[in-house]
């Protein structure tokens, strides 16, 4: 079963709508036990890195999530802040994060570009065709390992718009709100078209 982590201020309902639209069934996860039997796990993201980390701690879910993703290799997709917290650290409120991927998350320079970045940007992937996706972000990831970068886009400079390492995927953009391109990417992830 597909599992969508539902924490306060996240936009799990929008992700659920997208998954349902793809003709797939999913369940919300609100505690560690709910992760049992996960075929795929999606961590939606809205709000700050700190609030997201706090929510995951309050739900007491981090150990179960690491078991499922890092040891049992369940395919995982983090969206927006859900991708940012995969790294070691976020500059946003100086927040230590999960550290599944080496690297840190830093802020766009408001002297150079409007912050947040809000709108459709073109993402170039390493192994799928480029397309437009919807972004809302003030912060972006700087992976330490170049091979973790799956897609890039241009804003202040070129930045990492998507990451992947084995079964761990991350999208800085809102795949659930990126029209048909976003639905196609979600569908590929959920239907096993993205080899882990």
């Amino acid at each position, binding site marked *: 079963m597909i599992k969508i982590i539902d924490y306060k201020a996240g936009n799990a309902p929008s992700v659920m709508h997208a998954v349902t639209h793809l003709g797939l069934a999913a369940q919300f996860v609100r505690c560690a036990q709910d992760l049992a039997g996960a075929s795929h796990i999606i961590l939606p993201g809205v*709000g700050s890195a700190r609030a997201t980390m706090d929510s995951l701690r309050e739900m007491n879910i981090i150990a179960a999530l690491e078991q499922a993703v890092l040891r049992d290799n369940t395919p995982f997709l983090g969206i927006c802040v859900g991708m940012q917290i995969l790294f070691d650290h976020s500059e946003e409120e100086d927040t230590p994060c999960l550290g599944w991927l080496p690297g840190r998350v830093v802020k766009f320079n408001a002297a150079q570009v409007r912050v947040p970045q*809000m709108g459709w940007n073109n993402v170039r992937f390493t192994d799928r065709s480029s397309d437009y996706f919807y972004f809302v972000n003030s912060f972006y990831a700087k992976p330490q390992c170049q091979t973790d970068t799956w897609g890039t886009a241009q804003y202040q400079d070129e930045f990492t718009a998507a990451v992947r390492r084995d079964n761990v995927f991350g999208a800085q953009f809102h795949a659930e709100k990126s029209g048909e391109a976003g639905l196609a990417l979600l569908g590929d992830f959920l239907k096993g078209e993205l080899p882990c």
Partner: protein
Amino acid sequence: MLTKRLIACFDIVGGNVTKAVQFQDNIHVGPAAQLAQTLYDAQIDELIFYDITASNERRGIDIATVKEVAKCVFVPFTVGGGIKTLDDMYEALKAGAEKISVDSMAVRNPQIIEQGAKAFGSQCVVLSTQVKRTPTMPSGYEVYIDGARLATGLDAMEWLKQGQELGAGEICLNSIDCDGTLAGYDLELMKLAEQVVRVPLIASGGAGKPEHLRDVFTQTQAQAAIISSMLYSPRMARNYSVHELKDYLLQQGVNVRRYA
């Protein structure tokens, strides 16, 4: 590169879209979810819908319609009207909206901007404001509320600055003078606003021809523009499809999301 956004705007009454000229003479267009689905299929970049009678009728936003639209639309979707409290915001977000637009309510209680930004993030809070040319104001524009009926005495640029400081993540600026005239956006207003606004700025009011979109995107720093009549008003001699508008803008060198 980030593209310029075309945002379709609906005024909703009882689940149906209506179209007014300068806030009067509403005519019926059709069911909101149906129009939303049609525009999503046509690859509109974003949708905003305003429940225009919620405040007057002292009720919350039409959640049933928010839910219905959210099920068929997979682009960002903003809702406004009848939002008074954090709980109202939470309910609309939970129903599937991405962003909440605050307008008259925020003028009466500016703290709602700050509270919303803290609870859900700035990106969820769109400050929409209706302004009218008023030569006696320092910036030449005054903020109006309650469906553009009530002058507030607030200077438009001062209000935008304040809204931004309180945490609004985006500003939607509607010209009352241009609204429904189909004569083009108020470019002067947008040029003033881009000097004080650092968050994304949405131009609203006056679009009637594709050239108006070109002008606002090439002559001002607006990142997005509201269109409504052009897309669906039965009053127009001719409506435009999203594809037509995007083709035109691309030809004119405006970077928009290409459609498949």
